[in-house]
């Protein structure tokens, strides 16, 4: 059996941080199939865990376009070459080690990659896993007829070569450091099953997937639940539960009620709503904790609107937002204020950014100094541009709607007119968002893929879709200095060097304020007492990323 090695992107500098975070994880142990501590998990998979979800998992081919709620199934049924742990360290999964420039897995120029694979992994039907499966997977993603999910990063891969059943190599068209992170979300699919399909989009596999993961496909009752069963032949340590059930409960109040009544064992996405947090903590035999997520709520601006072009306006609006009142008064103290788009748990989080201070008077003076004077209607204007704009968010979200009303009043004191214009989610996040048709929006979004700090897609000037760009820089933010740093960051493999680059990016973005950062989300996660091994991982999109380590106290 190949010995899997752990490679960390961390240096000595954050060893303490790792130790603290790691200590929290030890209670659960066995994060990635390797036991960290001896513990009392059952030798044979026993029992069942029911995870309640607010959306229904429906896409089971992990390479096809899907949403985050499908990830819990993918992480359980499949394996990727690498996985990412709660501290952001990349760990081998189907790979035997994480390639880097020191171990020769990645060439000095970052262009040639060589990955050694495990020799003891098998597909659920008994067929041995091999490098051919990895090659097939990477090629399928770029098949123009296949409805693949993200193609970023994969599009740079050339000349994939199977060196042996346990070794594969490829060349990158250009050096792209984030690719390692992208591969933690790229699950490997079986060549021997999918290559026979004329149309992989409609393959039977997509409804009854075969993976190498710790759980095998059980059964799905559409609209209700799906059940996975333990794979006793899994190459790693675990699984310890016999059945893993994902139960679909669309109404969030009902989701919480079923957690209270004991019908579900663990609350998954979208977790317990903030208004139930205080009560949930008092429930007997339940463990309820706040878990940081990588999603950030912000007052997002369209910088091509004349009202927002001037930095003084953006600064004044930011100063007029009472973040603390919003967090404590409206969000029950659940989220954490932030000044950036980087998760505070990240190795790349810059904690030294200027802190926001709520001060309407100062905001007014800033606008006065910049020449935005109040007109007869009480609204400020400059060079014929009124300081008036629309703000949109998804309709039916009462908390965000309250935030809007609160801000509307504060801004009015400042001589700024904010009109509320909300839209259903299916309308809001379509062209209106993607093509920057909004004035401003209140949005909760992630900036990172996995734990990689690269935010080219969100903040690079060539990522403005409204101007023909490839990405989703919907604020239409353009700063040549940031562009250059992002380009450099994507080519840099050394974690320390990258850290310096992304610290600088955060400083510039905090200064330019293309969006007014409000807070980083915290999930209110709840589970029954007696479930062990549950470890939150903000670097993945699912609470079920390590279901293989869960077990019930006997």
């Amino acid at each position, binding site marked *: 059996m190949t010995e899997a090695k752990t490679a960390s992107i961390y240096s000595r500098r954050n060893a303490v941080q790792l130790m603290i975070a790691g200590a929290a994880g030890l209670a659960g142990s066995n994060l990635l199939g390797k036991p960290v501590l001896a513990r009392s998990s059952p030798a044979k998979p026993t029992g*069942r865990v029911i995870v309640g979800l607010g959306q*229904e998992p*429906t*896409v*089971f081919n992990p390479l096809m*376009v899907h*949403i985050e709620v499908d990830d819990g199934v993918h992480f359980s049924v499949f394996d990727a070459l690498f996985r990412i742990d709660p501290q952001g360290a990349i760990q081998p999964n189907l790979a035997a080690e994480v390639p880097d420039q020191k171990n020769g897995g990645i060439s000095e120029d970052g262009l040639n990659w060589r990955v050694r694979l495990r020799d003891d992994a098998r597909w659920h039907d008994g067929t041995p896993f091999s490098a051919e499966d990895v090659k097939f997977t990477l090629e399928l993603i770029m098949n123009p007829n296949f*409805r693949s*999910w*993200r*193609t*970023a990063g994969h599009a740079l891969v050339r000349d994939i070569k199977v060196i042996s059943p346990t070794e594969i190599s490829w060349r990158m068209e250009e050096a792209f450091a984030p690719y390692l992170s*992208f591969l933690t979300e790229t699950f490997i699919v079986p060549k021997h099953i999918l290559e026979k399909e004329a149309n992989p*989009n*409609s393959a039977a596999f997509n*409804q009854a997937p075969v993976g190498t993961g710790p759980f095998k496909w059980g059964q799905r*009752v*559409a*609209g*209700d*639940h799906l*059940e996975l069963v333990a794979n006793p032949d899994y190459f790693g340590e675990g699984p310890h539960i016999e*059945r893993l*059930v994902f*139960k*679909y*409960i*669309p*109404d969030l109040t*009902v989701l919480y*009620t*079923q957690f*209270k*009544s004991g*019908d579900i064992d663990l609350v998954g996405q979208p977790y317990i709503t903030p208004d139930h947090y205080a009560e949930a903590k008092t429930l007997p035999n339940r463990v309820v904790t706040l878990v940081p997520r990588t999603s950030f709520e912000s007052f997002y601006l369209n910088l091509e609107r004349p009202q927002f072009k001037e930095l003084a306006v953006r600064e004044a609006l930011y100063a007029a937002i009472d973040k603390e009142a919003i967090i404590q008064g409206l969000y029950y103290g659940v989220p954490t204020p932030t000044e950036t788009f980087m998760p505070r748990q990240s190795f790349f989080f810059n904690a030294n950014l200027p802190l926001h201070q709520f001060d309407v008077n100062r905001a007014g003076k800033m606008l006065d100094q910049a020449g935005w004077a109040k007109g007869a209607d009480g609204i400020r204007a400059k060079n014929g541009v009124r300081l008036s704009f629309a703000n949109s968010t998804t309709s039916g979200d009462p908390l965000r709607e309250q935030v809007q009303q609160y801000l509307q009043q504060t801004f009015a004191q400042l001589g700024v007119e904010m009109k509320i214009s909300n839209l*259903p*989610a*299916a*309308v*809001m*996040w*379509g*062209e*209106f*968002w*993607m093509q920057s048709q909004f004035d401003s929006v209140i*949005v*909760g*979004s*992630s*900036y*990172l893929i996995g734990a990689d700090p690269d935010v080219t*897609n*969100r903040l690079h000037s060539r*990522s403005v*879709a409204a101007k023909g*760009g*490839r*990405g*989703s820089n919907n604020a239409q933010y353009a700063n040549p200095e940031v562009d250059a740093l992002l380009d450099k960051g994507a080519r840099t493999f050394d974690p320390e060097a990258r850290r310096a680059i992304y610290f600088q990016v955060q400083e510039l973005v905090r200064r330019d304020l293309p969006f007014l950062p409000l807070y980083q989300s915290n999930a209110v996660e709840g589970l029954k007492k007696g479930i062990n091994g549950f470890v939150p991982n903000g670097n993945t999109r699912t609470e079920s990323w390590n279901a293989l380590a869960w077990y019930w106290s006997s």
Partner: protein
Amino acid sequence: MSGFLLNRLSQSIVLLVIVSIIGFTVLNLMPGGPLAQFGLDPGMTQKDVERLAAQLGLNRPLWIQYLDWAWRLLQGDWGHSFRDGSSVLAVIGRHLLATLLLMGTSTALAIAAGTWIGIRGATHRYSLFDYCATVGAMVALSVPTFWFGLIGIYIFTLKLGWVPAGNMYAIGDGSVLDYLHHLILPSLVLSLVHVAIWSRYMRTATLDALSQDFVKTARAKGVSERRILLKHVVGNALLPMITLAGMQLPSILTGALVTETVFTWPGMGRLFLDSLGYSDYPVVMGLLIFSAILVVLGNLIADIVIATVDPRIRLG
């Protein structure tokens, strides 16, 4: 009769075509669409979205998309769900049984209770029972079903622990008793509003029958009130109810949107809500056509039954 059937069938086909065109147009004209849900994914770019739109055929002119869809439908292909790739008929089939179970039970309860309340209300007009039934029906019709659902869960599940909070069965159980246990609360809550409707219609129809000449004649001949009621009134009062039952048929098969959501019942109503939420056009269109066919069929069956049981009605 055959002429009547042919006439009604041809009208129905035209109606279905109109419904499908309006439905397809309205659905596709809504901004956003099925790919909007990926707008917040940090890795999904505009180019990815455009690629997917092309692969799903969403970048074609609307009328071509409609003709393509209609042509396939005529060949028995209702399309495939954008969400999970299953055929639309399979998706509908998966949810139909759950709805049939819930709606069938609640409708049967509603008809039994509603008929009795309606007749008793009419025969004891302006009595305490009649007033209570009237007020009760008003409350049941005015208060949203989800409120009754949540109150029911709070009292009977969280406080008393008598019935489950929802779901069609306990995962891992699935015995007949378990199904029945899970059926109690949602079917009772759902039947409330139907009892109200049914009892009001039944009361009016009974009063109408009671004022007919044949009742007066029977009374003049000295027939007992009980016999008049059973022999002459109830049968005649039930006639207009056949139309009501026909109109109820689609809802028995298309489900109850809110109740199914509150009780996490995997039926057609929730499927419709979910599919709308995800802009899963093929499934939404499938459900639309399915319910349109049911409405047409329900009315047709009601007409035929009425014509059969009531010879006074002549169909041309």
